[in-house]
């Protein structure tokens, strides 16, 4: 089973990702564009068990580009600050992933792989930087999603 395709199909059910441009590895960055970046998953972290199954980890990063507003936070208008609203939209993605984990609703890695846990590696989005050369300027938020699963494809006991 292609895990990248499974994860893409799964993430596209997220309300904050649906309907927005979603790129894989390469992105034409613009406001609200999202980019999935694959990460090499170290084989050294694999944990084999005596029955032939192996505990593995799949990790990827989701980048969310948001246009920057040159807008100070004024206490009376805090709820309408664009930068804060954009940040909270990315936060919603984190909360959605956590919620799906609670419901044990996971991507489909195939019948030989059993997903045990899916978690975002931080409680809040990481601001990687702001590209002021683009127009409008773009803030780049990232969240990393880690999926722990049991690969039973090499188990000989059926």
């Amino acid at each position, binding site marked *: 089973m292609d895990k990248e395709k499974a994860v893409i199909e799964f993430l596209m059910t997220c309300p904050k990702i649906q309907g927005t441009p979603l790129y894989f590895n390469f992105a034409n960055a613009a406001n609200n564009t999202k980019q999935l970046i694959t990460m090499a998953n170290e084989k050294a972290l694999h944990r*084999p*068990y*005596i*029955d*032939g199954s192996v505990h593995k980890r799949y990790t990827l990063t989701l980048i969310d580009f948001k246009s920057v507003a040159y807008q100070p936070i004024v206490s009376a208008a805090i709820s309408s600050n664009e930068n804060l609203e954009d940040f909270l939209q990315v936060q919603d993605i984190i909360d959605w992933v956590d919620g799906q984990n609670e419901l044990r609703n996971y991507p489909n890695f195939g019948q030989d792989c059993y997903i045990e846990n899916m978690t975002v590696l931080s409680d809040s989005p990481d601001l990687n930087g702001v590209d002021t050369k683009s127009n409008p300027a773009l803030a780049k938020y990232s969240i990393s999603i880690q999926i722990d699963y049991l690969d039973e494809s*090499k*188990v*000989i*006991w*059926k």
Partner: protein
Amino acid sequence: MASTLNLALHERAQRKSLITVAEWETPGEGNTSVQHREILGRRVEDSSIELNPDIQTSTDILGITYSDVAKTEPQQTLDPAYIMGGSDLSSYLSDAMLENNIAAYNGRFNVYIISAFIGDATNGYKAVKHSGCSIIPTSIGGDAYVAMPLEIHFSNDITKGTVDKLSDDFVFTADVTI
């Protein structure tokens, strides 16, 4: 006569090819009983069958040392052994442990040790059956997930034979001694 390994020259037998399977019965409807079988060792990284030999040594006046094994008390520890969905053994032993039902452990299990590195699907895989073993949970708890470490005490009441397949519905065929 020694068994023939189904391994290439210098190939090591993978740990997954040494399989321990527990078999036990629980009451069914009426006077029937339900047979259960379950492979042991899911999510266990390391476990060995310890023979615990009782070795008696003596040295004669010529300086020759003799070592005799008086007996063995084979035992295998599975730690961690998590309570897992779909595991009949988890269900059976956790009930027994929480109710302190010692009779549920003692001599209630047949345990098969299957050497999948000897034999094949056509002729069967070498297996020995220990009848009347005890599988004993030693604790319950842990950190993130509920673990119930187990000790398997083999009976040494052994029947040698083969199994026809590597799944819970195997048929064990005892060797015939003529």
